[in-house]
């Protein structure tokens, strides 16, 4: 060794320390380290991509999930999904869709053409004899379409297709098949997206917070305080407690059946949880008339089910689909089984007039701003150490642990994708133009002007 050259350390990073005087002490935190690492989401899971009606025949759309840009195209009714990042020089195929036949999509820049089915590079427009043709391609993603929703299995490039699990393993548990295991004496069996005749009505929009902050809000039993003044609560005179406290040694039961979804069920509105209706010190008392019983459960990769909500025979599903580490696509979907067109029309009628404006907006708007209010505390990573959790937070802690166990992979930070670089000049210019960064690709609208 040359003694004259000093040995130097690499530049080091700061390490946070954690106090032991709280529920999420360092030992508990280490149990959910994989969850803390999942800022860009969990990968190798099924996520909703679009409502069916957002992708009519022959349309091409570009979105981003867990740092992976995805292009979708519908041909003869069937939906295909490929990585929306050209093999050649990374352009998004969906920015200016170009399709010359029913089985391929072509990159509008230099003509690399990919098979919709498996992503293989099948030709290059002006260079069909290039030796690269047929030897390589882009990743394809399995697609399922149910009850008016398109789901994509967002996988790592080398996740084997034969290992892809069925969609049902990433959807909430179903009833009545689970009614014995999870009895619900106060309401009828909740419908499922997979039920015959199921109709899903809802909306999706971009929230500006990490997907985990969003997801944890959905089943946080102390957060219902934020809904105290929502219009629908007062209009319908609902008894919405100030909060709900765990009151049993097993307030939450894990859902871990071999081939089914993995998640947890909260025994709300049983003796395992105590609704708090009064705070004397603050002079607060809920004295509404109409009981509004519901129950929340969550399964991987972060799918909320609110049974018996907002009224009987309807269930509300939510997804918090990671886009980047600081944005998620918030999906709010109500499902009802409507065997006849008449029932379907009635559901749609009530959805448009009441549920959409007063529940999905109104009530859930509250959740959206509450999550964004938490984002900055967690954005630099220190919030996960600094938070001081209490007994009701058994819900997020249980979720973090189960997610650490049952995830099929931790998404890597997006590579070469929109909004991975927070300060890129394009991002800043678009912001200046009033276009918030989000879920959909920025399309080239007019080919002759810019």
């Amino acid at each position, binding site marked *: *060794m040359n003694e004259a*050259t000093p*040995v*130097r*350390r*690499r530049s*080091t990073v700061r390490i946070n320390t954690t106090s032991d005087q709280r529920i999420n002490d360092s*030992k508990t935190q*280490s*149990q959910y*380290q*994989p969850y803390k690492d999942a800022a860009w989401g969990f990968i*190798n899971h099924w996520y909703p991509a679009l409502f069916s009606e957002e992708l009519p025949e022959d349309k091409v759309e570009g979105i981003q999930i867990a740092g992976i840009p995805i292009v979708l195209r519908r041909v003869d009714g069937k939906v295909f999904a490929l990585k929306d990042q050209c093999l050649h020089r990374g352009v998004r195929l969906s920015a200016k869709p170009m399709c010359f036949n029913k089985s391929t999509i072509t990159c509008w820049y230099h003509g690399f053409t990919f098979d919709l089915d498996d992503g293989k590079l099948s030709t290059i427009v002006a260079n069909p004899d290039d030796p690269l043709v047929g030897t390589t391609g882009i990743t394809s993603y399995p697609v399922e379409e149910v009850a008016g929703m398109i789901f994509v299995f967002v*996988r*790592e490039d*080398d*996740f*084997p297709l034969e*290992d892809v699990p069925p969609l049902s393993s990433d959807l909430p548990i179903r009833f009545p098949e689970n009614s014995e295991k999870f009895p619900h004496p106060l309401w009828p069996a909740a419908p499922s997206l997979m039920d015959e005749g199921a109709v899903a009505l809802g909306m999706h929009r971009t929230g500006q917070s990490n997907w985990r902050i969003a997801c944890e809000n959905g089943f946080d039993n102390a957060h219902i305080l934020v809904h105290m003044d929502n219009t629908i609560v007062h209009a319908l005179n609902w008894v919405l407690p100030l909060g709900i406290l765990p009151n049993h040694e097993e307030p939450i039961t894990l859902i871990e059946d071999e081939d089914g979804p993995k998640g947890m069920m909260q025994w709300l509105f049983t003796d395992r949880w105590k609704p708090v209706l009064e705070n004397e010190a603050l002079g607060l008392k809920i004295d509404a008339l109409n009981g509004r019983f519901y129950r929340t459960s969550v399964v991987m990769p972060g799918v909320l089910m609110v049974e018996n909500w907002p009224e009987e025979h309807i269930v509300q599903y939510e997804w918090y689909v990671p886009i980047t580490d600081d944005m998620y696509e918030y999906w709010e979907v109500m499902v009802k089984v409507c065997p006849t067109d008449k029932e379907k029309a009635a559901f749609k009628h009530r959805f448009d007039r009441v549920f959409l404006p007063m529940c999905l907006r109104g009530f859930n708007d509250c959740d959206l701003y509450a999550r964004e209010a938490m984002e900055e505390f967690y954005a630099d990573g220190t919030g996960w150490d600094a938070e001081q959790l209490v007994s009701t937070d058994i819900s997020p802690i249980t979720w973090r*642990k189960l997610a*650490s*166990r*049952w995830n*099929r*992979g*931790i998404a890597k930070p997006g590579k070469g994708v929109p909004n991975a670089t927070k300060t890129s000049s394009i991002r800043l210019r678009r912001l200046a133009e009033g276009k918030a960064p989000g879920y959909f690709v920025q399309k080239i609208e007019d080919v002759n002007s810019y």
Partner: protein
Amino acid sequence: MTGTAQHRVTLAFSDGVEHEMAVDPGGSVLEAGLAAGLPLLHQCRSGSCSSCLATLVEGEAATLPGCSSSLLASERAAGQRLLCVTGASSDCRFALPYDSKVGENRAVEGHAFVNAVERVAADVMRLELELAEDCWFEFRPGQFIQIKVPGTDQTRSYSIASTPAELPKIELLIRLLPGGVMSEWLLGQAAVDTALEISGPYGAFFLQEASKAPVVMIAGGTGLAPMMAMIDVIRARPGRKPPIHLSFGCQSAEGLFHGEAIALRSMWLPSLTVTTSVDRGPAPDGVRIGNPVEAVGADGPLDPETVAYLCGPPGMIEAARRHLQALGVAPGNIHAEQFVAS
């Protein structure tokens, strides 16, 4: 015929890449291969470290006169050879237990800083290092590095317990031996920020390509280190995870360590089962009395495709090989790293 004629030797890497070359009489296959520029794993070049292990699949090849090999008779009978001390007695063919790209992780020399030194059991230290600016390498989980013991001219080898993704950090688990030079340094002088001279990576013991075949890992004492690295890498691999049985054993309860780290892995990896054993009691809750070898296959037959990794003292490795072969595991699927106390 030995020693008189040149023979043609074919080396077949596990990824299908093959090379044919001539081996001179009296010369070793390893030397001939390295001279031909092949990426062959090796280290001591004297028949003791097992880095150059290969399986003779055709022809005849014997230990060169005047050399000795650390292989057991049973291993030799199964076709295993250490290429550094093996000559060709006829045209022959060897299968290498690694692919043609492994040798590209060539060993480098450089420095690493001590980040932490911590006693984790009566006779085990955890040493966390961080590669200095002058040193970078890639490695496969299971491989080891060498450290020059400060103030001496001795080097010691230790398997890496952390994963390549954690580089530049490296975690080692080191057994304390009364009077051992490294042990004395660790107990007496080791301090955070000390720069150590290291080299690596070395070794032909590493995690094989992803497959669905069940995995058995038997670790004696600090033989746990490479298993921790392999488990963490399997956990991060895409696709359905194979069932893994880790059987970890120590002499007594005072020798047990890493209980929490192992418990976390079983929490995060549903396909991982762990058995912990101590040779002699008393045994804490959940720990069995007995050796870690017998714990494997105790509750049912093994899948014939099982891939096994063994790391520990020579006696344990030999017992484990015999036990696993009796349970139907193919000799070629048993990968072992033995360590000699020093």
